[in-house]
């Protein structure tokens, strides 16, 4: 019986394909925008080109005051994101560690890391850093 081909042949990451596709998509999008700009009608009217507002002229000032919560969210995201990224190689090698008889070791080493992670999360919740109003 002829074998059906294996589901995977490890081919790494085809960088050339990624670059080619990204370039193609960028060109495709730019071309469509260019086409739309050439085909569209154009009637100048100063009011039309003002910023969208509720009927009054838009304020010029760009220095908007934004709640510090947004920055805090972004920083906490970076911290937790890095911790999650470190779980990926752990999850990838977990079964191999178990098969080689080091299951408890790998479980404990990630257990401590997770303990710190969960402690951090609970601290954030308790310190009301994640409260929005």
């Amino acid at each position, binding site marked *: 019986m002829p074998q059906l081909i294996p589901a995977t042949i*490890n081919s*790494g*990451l085809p*960088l*050339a394909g*990624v*670059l080619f596709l990204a370039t193609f998509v960028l060109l495709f999008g730019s071309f469509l925008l260019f086409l739309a700009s050439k085909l569209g009608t154009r009637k100048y009217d100063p009011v039309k080109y003002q910023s969208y507002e509720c009927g009054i002229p838009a304020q010029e*000032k*760009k*220095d*908007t*005051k*934004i*709640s*510090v*919560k*947004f*920055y*805090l969210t*972004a*920083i*906490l*995201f*970076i*911290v*937790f*994101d*890095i*911790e999650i*990224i*470190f779980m*990926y*190689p*752990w999850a*990838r*090698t977990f079964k*191999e*560690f178990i098969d080689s008889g080091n299951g408890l070791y*790998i479980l404990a*080493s*990630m257990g*401590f*890391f997770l303990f*710190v*992670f969960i*402690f*951090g999360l609970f*601290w*954030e919740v308790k*310190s009301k*850093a994640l409260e929005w109003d």
Partner: protein
Amino acid sequence: MISDAILFWILAFLSLSAGLTVVMIANPIYSALALVMTMVSVAGLFVTLGAYFLAGVQLIVYAGAVMVLFVMVLMLFDLKNEVYAFTQGLLTNVVKLGCLGLLAGLLAGTLVLSSYQSQEIQDKVVAAADQTKALGQLLFTQYLFGFEVLGILLLIVAIGAVALSRSRGGTHHV
């Protein structure tokens, strides 16, 4: 392989030109966006070295998280005065000269070191398919202590960020 060489030159050109743009351009937003481009092309360079997981991490952490914060912050502030303050004056010029010296030193060091170390490193490169596995195994055996300490370091960073956001008297509304 010739195609690998072409890819490397494209990515090297991209990352270097984007990196130069970061320091040359005066507008902080464009500077940050050029830094994003640098991060992405460095991720591509990791791929040419066969470090696929590292390339993914570079994309997720640097391009997808750190630079999003940078761009977000820069977009919300009008930095005209700061740009002016940091592009003029004696102190700035001294800093510029110092940076130039550091860059020259870095370049010279890289050239000297790369001429006789590259073969050694080449031999150490693991087969591409097993790299992530090897990374995991090294991380959780040889570098376990560093890994656990990193967890605590990240906790401290999070606590520090919360503490900073609490301090009143800045320019922001709470």
